[in-house]
């Protein structure tokens, strides 16, 4: 079933780790680059697993798992130049990781102690957008600015299959086509819009929608990191050279729950997971690396150790995160605070301090 759907998808590495040719797409990477792709995927998966556990232990309020989507996220983000700009969703931990966002910055947001988490300008990566599809419009607007500046820069925006039903996403498609924006629409089709399955709302393959808007669409095997990189690089090059936008549909699968508030066993069968487990993005690259002598046991062990260390770092770091002082909520409302907000801030501080009164009075 999956293979039939993937029929039109670009693939360079089979689920069994065999390198195959494609008439239109190819990629050449050094052994070191391939190893670093593997390492990033393993570390992102470990971060995801630890964050899921921390939510179950009450340390963070919510977590959206990226399990199974590592190749789509890490592969596309690795295709970016440092000057390019990314707009991720709340599930794109592999993207933010590759943009240099620190795990603690991501987890601080899910712990509810920051309104953002990181400096989006410094990271060239916007904050996670929780509203479905909203960031696609942001990206279109940002890309219009890039175009007006004549900057040598491409923009990539991430969204899920469910988001393609949103007006925001379709409006952003129209803008991208009309203005020939330097923009890559990267759709991670993970088959599930919370509990609604793909075929409930995608009557036609998603990548084909691009044709109706007037730009190319490509479906890529989203669990094949080589194909994801080859296709995303092509789309980014088109964007930078004035060729206009491209829709990339990375065909993948959400192996975990929608978020930690969701219980997917209520609406999907375990056998679907078994099918996709055989298509795991990390395993296929590992097999490819091992079979071709690009990495050996000691390298894989070393990455596993790194992942275990990362888990401890994340766990201890999150537990040690202190809640900010309540009055900091006023800090980023305006550059120059209004008199009303100054008064509210002073009132809040006085109220907080009144808890300590009495015993000392």
């Amino acid at each position, binding site marked *: 079933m999956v293979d039939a759907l993937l029929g039109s998808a670009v693939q360079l590495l089979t689920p069994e780790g065999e390198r195959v040719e494609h008439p239109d797409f190819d990629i050449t990477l050094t052994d070191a680059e391939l190893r670093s792709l593997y390492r990033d995927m393993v570390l992102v998966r470990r971060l995801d697993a630890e964050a899921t556990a921390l939510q179950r232990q*009450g*340390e963070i309020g919510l977590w959206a798992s990226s399990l199974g989507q590592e190749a789509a996220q890490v592969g596309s983000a690795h295709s970016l130049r440092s000057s390019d700009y990314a707009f991720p969703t709340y599930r794109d931990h592999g993207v933010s990781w590759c943009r240099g966002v620190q795990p603690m910055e991501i987890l601080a947001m899910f712990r509810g102690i920051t309104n953002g988490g990181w400096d989006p300008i410094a990271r060239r990566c916007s904050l996670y957008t929780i509203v479905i599809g909203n960031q696609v419009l942001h990206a279109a607007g940002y890309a219009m600015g890039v175009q007006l500046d004549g900057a040598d820069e491409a923009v990539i925006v991430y969204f899920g299959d469910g988001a393609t039903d949103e007006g925001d996403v379709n409006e952003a498609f129209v803008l991208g086509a009309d203005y020939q924006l330097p923009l890559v629409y990267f759709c991670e089709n993970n088959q599930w819009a919370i509990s609604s399955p793909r075929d409930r709302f995608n009557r036609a393959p998603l990548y084909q929608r691009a044709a109706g808007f007037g730009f190319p669409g490509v479906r890529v095997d989203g669990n094949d990191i080589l194909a994801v990189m080859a296709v995303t690089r092509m789309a980014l090059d088109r964007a930078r050279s004035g060729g206009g936008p491209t829709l990339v549909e990375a065909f993948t699968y959400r192996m975990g729950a929608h978020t930690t508030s969701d*219980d997917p066993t209520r609406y999907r069968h375990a056998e679907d997971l078994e099918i996709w487990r055989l298509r795991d993005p990390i395993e296929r690259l590992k097999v490819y690396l091992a079979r071709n002598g690009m990495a050996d046991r000691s390298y894989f062990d070393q990455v596993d150790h790194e992942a275990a260390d990362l888990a401890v770092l994340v766990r201890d770091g999150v537990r*040690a995160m202190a809640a900010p002082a309540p009055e900091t909520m006023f800090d980023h409302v305006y550059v120059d605070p209004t008199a009303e907000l100054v008064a509210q801030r002073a009132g809040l501080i006085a109220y907080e301090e009144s*808890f300590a009164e*009495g015993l000392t009075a």
Partner: protein
Amino acid sequence: MTSIREFALPDVGEGLTEAEILRWLVQPGDVVAVNDMIVEIETAKAAVELPSPFAGTIVELKVQPGDVVAVGTPIVGIETVAAAEAPSRQAVLVGYGVREESTPSRRRRGRRGTDVDETAAAPADEPAPAVAVSAAASEASPGVVKAKPPVRHLARELGVDLNRIIATGLHGEVTREDVRSAAGSGAPPAAPSRQAPRDERIAVHGVHRAMAEAMAHSARTAPQVTEWVDVEMTRANQAVARLREAWQGDGVRVTLLTLVATGLIRAVQAHPLTNAAWVDEGPALQMRGAVNMGIAADTPRGLLVPVVKDAGALSLRQLAGAIQGLVDDAREGRSTPADLTGGTVSVTNIGVFGIDGGTPLLPPGQSAILAMGRVVERPWVVEGVVVSRPVMQLTLTFDHRVMDGATGSKVLRAVADFLADPALELLVDSR
């Protein structure tokens, strides 16, 4: 050096306040690593497993399967090796305040010099749940006493029970001065309250809520008629005994329920309206080819109705196996969503509760449900002589939009006739 750490029930959803403990995956004495799964819980949204935040040895399970536990309640004690783990810290979740019982050291802070004494003797490293209880009890009636949070905090620090203070505030609220003077006058401190029976409102969720919604919908929408009949069960009992004997050792569990289900399937096949559903649009009748038989089961999680799919296509032996498998799954909590949906007609066995008969309500989307009462020896008249015979009452509730009284009566009579002499009915049918 070791210390005992507590793991408090987290909010695993977004803003959930409580969860039910389904089962423990560990027992006292078990050694666990960080993130080993230790307990399965069910919230209004999902059944999930919780991973241990600590490495160590389980020393105490503080709550039992079936308990509905408030978020923040300690559920397990784990003995850890000191310094192996970062200090425990309760999350401050979005929408929640800091929990009072976060760590023992915090709990003791500020209690110096006060007259709250129940923890004074507690060993330094041991949590003192009694304090948490008394603090909660003094706060348990916040609707009665008006006081601002800082004043409540002060009262707690001074060990003053807000309920026993005369409020002098402008709007009838307890003021900081009220608390101080009460503390100074030696007013009685907050006493740990006895667990007296009290009025309370309990949230309904999970299986219970699903049942409530389904039954209310059924009662509102379908005009339901109930008929009943007594059946003499001598031959049916014999048939069950014979089948058990014949299939002994095959692991097939034949019960009276198997036979009743068989009788109902035959009646449904003879009267297809029994298997139909009323459709408001039209209006129309949705006729259904397959007989998907729901079997009401009393499980630890509440009433579940697993469905035997296409029961009419099964042999008696297959039917027995299917019922057995589905009911076992339901009781073990293994039912899949598919197991619990798609029923077209149902059977419920209230006899197992020692009940003679009753008027079941239709599951939504179904037009008939048959209830079987207990089998009990009753006076029965045979050829003018009163004798003692095993008798069971059968009750059929049906949707009067779908079937008229004559049809419903024929269906119930057909089941009764089958049970009165199953062998004869099967022979007659095999003509």
